């Protein structure tokens, strides 16, 4: 009978029975017809037919049961049998279910995250044709370049651009800081979405600079900050003290075009000046656009689009040689900021999925060997059933039913747990300062994957004892009266191999998690080029309170003075952006002798920080030689800079030669180097030494204001006094205050999450292999109790007994651990990709892994060892 029909029968029992009834009825009817034809009366004919037919009900039942063979009824029988078997050994059942629940839960969580990060498309129509533009690894463009690309390309339906920024929003109550998207007018139309209420702004609203004072609220922000007021449309609010009209609210599921980074509202990019206090829209060299995205036209391939974009790039290179070097484009998915976050996340998630899969495999190996041991214990029972005429197929079916039942129970428990965990994770906002929402709730993909994993693992570990059952020779076993020892004591069998594999996986997980922890610890204490201890950081943008022009430096001076006046404060430094802060700015610099200031001629591309005179002191960045800035380094004084060693090395060959020398910026300004500071980390913890230059903020003013405060007092206590001091200066200025250390949160988020996930997997691996070793040791001790008793009776020492009982388990543990350690060292490279400075070649990690595995071994064999030692030869002998 075909499988399809069998499955169909499961769902159509009623139909099948009806069919049988019809068939039997027609049989009886034909008999009646014949009886009447042979001269009987109708009643007589009927009576005779029924009599001859016998018990119709029982016939029907027996036909139905034939039809249902291998279907629902017998399946139910198998399930009941399996439940009975499991209830007879509850510890086995619990161990198995918990093991699987953990493994499948871990897989469901990792897969959910992977799904949310990499598989689930952005919530816009036709997300599959939405691409972001990247050039030389960067997404940013100047606004003018964007306009040229938008108008000259022939591949995109409509090319939209946006920039991520912060702005102060004043709705009449307390001004608050909001994360915004500054978008091109065509943004919503290019994405093809419709507003939830009101309307969006369009390209037609762009009539030159500051021509479109409109905002569109994100749905969540409308709910949280405007109580989902339906009459919000048309209301005027202040953005950085400029009046803007609320046009509408974006649809509920739309969170911008960057994964997890949920903006509060959207404003037209043409109003950049009002929103950010600077106007970079007319400068071709200034990167204003963060990302350019658009839907490819139907039928246009990625390759064609890139060729098309590159031809526009070539035009830009030729037309504006001063501003552009090579301009070659690639397309990427906007979700995870292209390859910036996408590539490491992809690599890490793939690695993590692999590890989670390995954990599941280890769990399967574990359960497989438990099942094999059980099957070995039940050899006699199996033999008996075989001898009594049960088919091997049926016995295997019972075994598989048991395995699948366990895997389903474990899978359900695991999935349940993971849903709770994921729900927590989705509600969690890791950074108070950033609008990051990790929406990783499971969807249909996740449920399907979990079910698949569950069934596959059930069949996987259920399949381990197959050979054993197939090889069982009922007559031999029944005749000889013993079930054999299951595992032969010398040869390695499948269970040993499974255990070794499982322990190797566990050791790999333990190695990776220890290496990650060590790496993270080292990252936290590595030399950033500045101090984090006793440092507070205050972050604001004066343009949010509408400070422009000369009012900016004046206000910054007042802020510095005021904060300096707080008791306990040692020094206060100010910068437009800080190393390892929210964003990094870089610029081309040229040798003093260079006249051709095209970017292809640049001598270096250092990070740029504009800082106040006391910045180095406050930040704890040691000045190696030369002088710090002073209040005299202002607009009237010659341009000066302080550079780091790497900068000096790139431009002048060595650091000492740099002091007093000159270099040029891309607009031709000559700058003299007056000081030298040590190298640090500027954009990421994993970067190689990078050149950096510090400019006096008085010479190049900026409304962006980071205040680094060094104090003797506990920084946490200092926070409120800084806030109240600033509130007195300007109550309309939204500020963020945090410790310098917690300012690194965003950078450390990835490594931290990675480390936590690895620790969890490591713990699970450790638990799994402990269960595995325990099972193996306990089984071998109980199998060999008699032999151990005889040994003891013959005068064996405790040590010898232990060796006989557990030697094998310990040997397997050592082999597995060694293999896992080697794998861990090999995997270190992948690990270092995510967790900076993570390496398994660290002696502390190596020693730690060996110790952990040894402890696991001792813990897991403790109980079986006690049992082996407590063997009383006499009583054992008597039993038999």
């Amino acid at each position, binding site marked *: 009978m075909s499988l399809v029909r069998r499955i169909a029968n499961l769902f159509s029992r009623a139909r099948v029975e009806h069919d049988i009834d019809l068939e*039997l009825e027609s*049989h009886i009817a*034909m*008999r009646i017809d014949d009886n009447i034809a042979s001269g009987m009366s109708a009643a007589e004919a009927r009576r005779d037919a029924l009599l001859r037919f016998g018990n119709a009900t029982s*016939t029907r039942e*027996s036909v139905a049961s*034939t*039809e249902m063979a291998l279907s629902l009824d017998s399946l139910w029988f198998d399930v009941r049998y399996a439940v009975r078997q499991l209830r007879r050994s509850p510890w086995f059942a619990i161990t198995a279910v918990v093991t699987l629940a953990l493994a499948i839960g871990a897989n469901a969580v990792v897969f959910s995250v992977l799904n949310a990060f990499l598989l689930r498309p952005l919530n816009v129509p036709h997300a599959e044709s939405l691409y972001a533009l990247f050039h030389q690894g960067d997404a940013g463009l100047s606004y003018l370049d964007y306009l040229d690309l938008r108008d000259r390309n022939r591949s995109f339906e409509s090319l939209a651009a946006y920039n991520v920024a912060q702005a102060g929003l004043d709705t009449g109550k307390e001004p608050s800081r909001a994360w915004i998207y500054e978008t091109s007018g065509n943004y919503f139309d290019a994405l093809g979405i419709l507003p939830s209420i009101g309307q969006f702004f369009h390209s037609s609203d762009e009539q030159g600079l500051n021509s479109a004072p409109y905002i569109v609220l994100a749905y969540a922000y409308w709910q949280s900050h405007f109580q989902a007021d339906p009459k919000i449309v048309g209301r005027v609010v202040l953005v950085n003290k400029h009046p803007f009209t609320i046009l509408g609210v974006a649809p509920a599921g739309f969170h911008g075009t960057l994964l997890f980074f949920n903006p509060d509202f959207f404003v037209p990019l043409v109003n950049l000046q009002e929103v950010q206090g600077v106007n970079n829209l007319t400068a071709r060299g200034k990167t204003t656009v963060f990302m350019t995205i658009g839907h490819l036209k139907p039928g246009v391939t990625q390759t064609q689009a890139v060729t098309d974009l590159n031809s526009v790039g070539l035009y830009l290179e030729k037309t504006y040689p001063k501003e552009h070097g090579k301009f070659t484009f690639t397309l990427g998915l906007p979700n995870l900021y292209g390859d910036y976050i996408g590539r490491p996340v992809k690599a890490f998630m793939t690695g993590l999925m692999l590890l989670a899969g390995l954990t599941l495999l280890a769990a399967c190996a574990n359960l497989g060997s438990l099942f094999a041991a059980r099957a070995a214990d039940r050899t006699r029972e199996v033999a008996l059933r075989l001898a009594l005429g049960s088919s091997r197929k049926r016995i295997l079916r019972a075994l598989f039913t048991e395995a699948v039942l366990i895997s389903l129970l474990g899978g359900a428990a695991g999935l349940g747990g993971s849903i709770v965990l994921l729900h927590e994770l989705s509600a969690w906002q890791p950074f108070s300062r950033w609008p990051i929402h990790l929406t990783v709730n499971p969807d249909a993909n996740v449920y399907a994957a979990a079910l698949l994993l569950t069934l596959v693992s059930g069949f996987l570990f259920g399949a381990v004892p197959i050979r054993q059952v197939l090889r069982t020779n009922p007559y031999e076993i029944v005749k000889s009266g013993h079930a054999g020892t299951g595992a032969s004591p010398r040869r390695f069998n499948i269970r040993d191999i499974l255990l070794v594999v499982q322990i190797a996986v566990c050791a790999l997980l333990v190695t990776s998690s220890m290496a990650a922890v060590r790496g993270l610890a080292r990252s936290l204490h590595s030399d950033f080029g500045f101090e984090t201890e006793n440092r507070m950081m205050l972050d604001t943008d004066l343009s949010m309170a509408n400070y422009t022009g000369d009012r900016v430096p004046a206000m910054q001076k007042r802020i510095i003075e005021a904060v300096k006046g707080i008791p306990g404060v040692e020094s206060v430094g100010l910068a437009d952006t800080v190393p390892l802060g929210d964003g990094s700015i870089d610029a081309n610099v040229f040798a003093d002798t260079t006249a051709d200031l095209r970017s292809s001629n640049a001598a270096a591309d250092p990070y740029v920080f504009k800082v106040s005179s006391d910045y180095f002191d406050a930040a704890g960045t040691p000045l190696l030689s030369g002088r710090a800035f002073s209040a005299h380094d202002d607009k009237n004084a010659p341009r000066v800079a302080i550079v780091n060693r790497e900068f000096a090395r790139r431009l002048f060959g060595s650091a000492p030669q740099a002091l007093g020398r000159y270099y040029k910026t891309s607009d031709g300004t000559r700058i003299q180097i007056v000081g030298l500071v040590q190298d640090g980390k500027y954009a990421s913890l994993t970067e190689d030494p990078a050149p950096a230059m510090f400019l006096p903020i008085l010479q190049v003013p900026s409304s962006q204001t980071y205040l680094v405060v060094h104090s003797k007092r506990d920084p946490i206590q200092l926070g409120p006094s800084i806030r109240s001091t600033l509130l007195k200066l300007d109550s309309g200025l939204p500020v963020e205050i945090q410790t310098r250390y917690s300012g690194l949160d965003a950078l450390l988020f990835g490594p931290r999450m990675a480390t936590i996930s690895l620790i969890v997997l490591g713990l699970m691996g450790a638990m799994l292999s402990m269960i595995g070793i325990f099972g193996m040791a306990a089984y071998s001790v109980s199998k060999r109790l008699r032999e151990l008793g005889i040994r003891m009776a013959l005068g064996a020492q405790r040590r010898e007994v232990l060796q006989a009982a557990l030697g094998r388990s310990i040997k397997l543990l050592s082999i597995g651990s060694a293999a896992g350690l080697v794998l861990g060292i090999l995997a270190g490279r992948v690990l270092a990709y995510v967790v900076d400075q993570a390496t398994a070649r660290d002696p502390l990690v190596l020693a730690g892994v060996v110790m952990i595995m040894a402890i696991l071994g001792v813990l897991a064999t403790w109980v079986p060892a006690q049992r082996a030692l407590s063997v009383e030869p006499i009583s054992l002998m008597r039993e038999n």
Partner: protein
Amino acid sequence: MARNDFQGSLDLLVLKTLSQTGKLHGYGIVLHIQRASDELLRVEEGSLYPALHRMEQSKWISSEWALTETNRKAKYYKLTAAGRKQLQEAEASFEQLVKGIRAIMQFA
């Protein structure tokens, strides 16, 4: 065991009947066996129908609903290729069995 043996011969009888008559319903099979064996063999409906369904699952026979000469709906069975092969094997082993039994009966 005994029942199993009978089941084996029932299968043989049914397969043989279908091979001789082509398409036939359950009632027709009962009648045919009865008549062809000169009323010596009587097939019980209680055994026949489970056997028919089992053989159908084994793909030895196939079934379809059709009208009888008296215009009743009945389920007709016919032999499949696999059934024909099975019949040959069953016939062969039946011959062996008969030969064996005959040899024993004639021994002495």
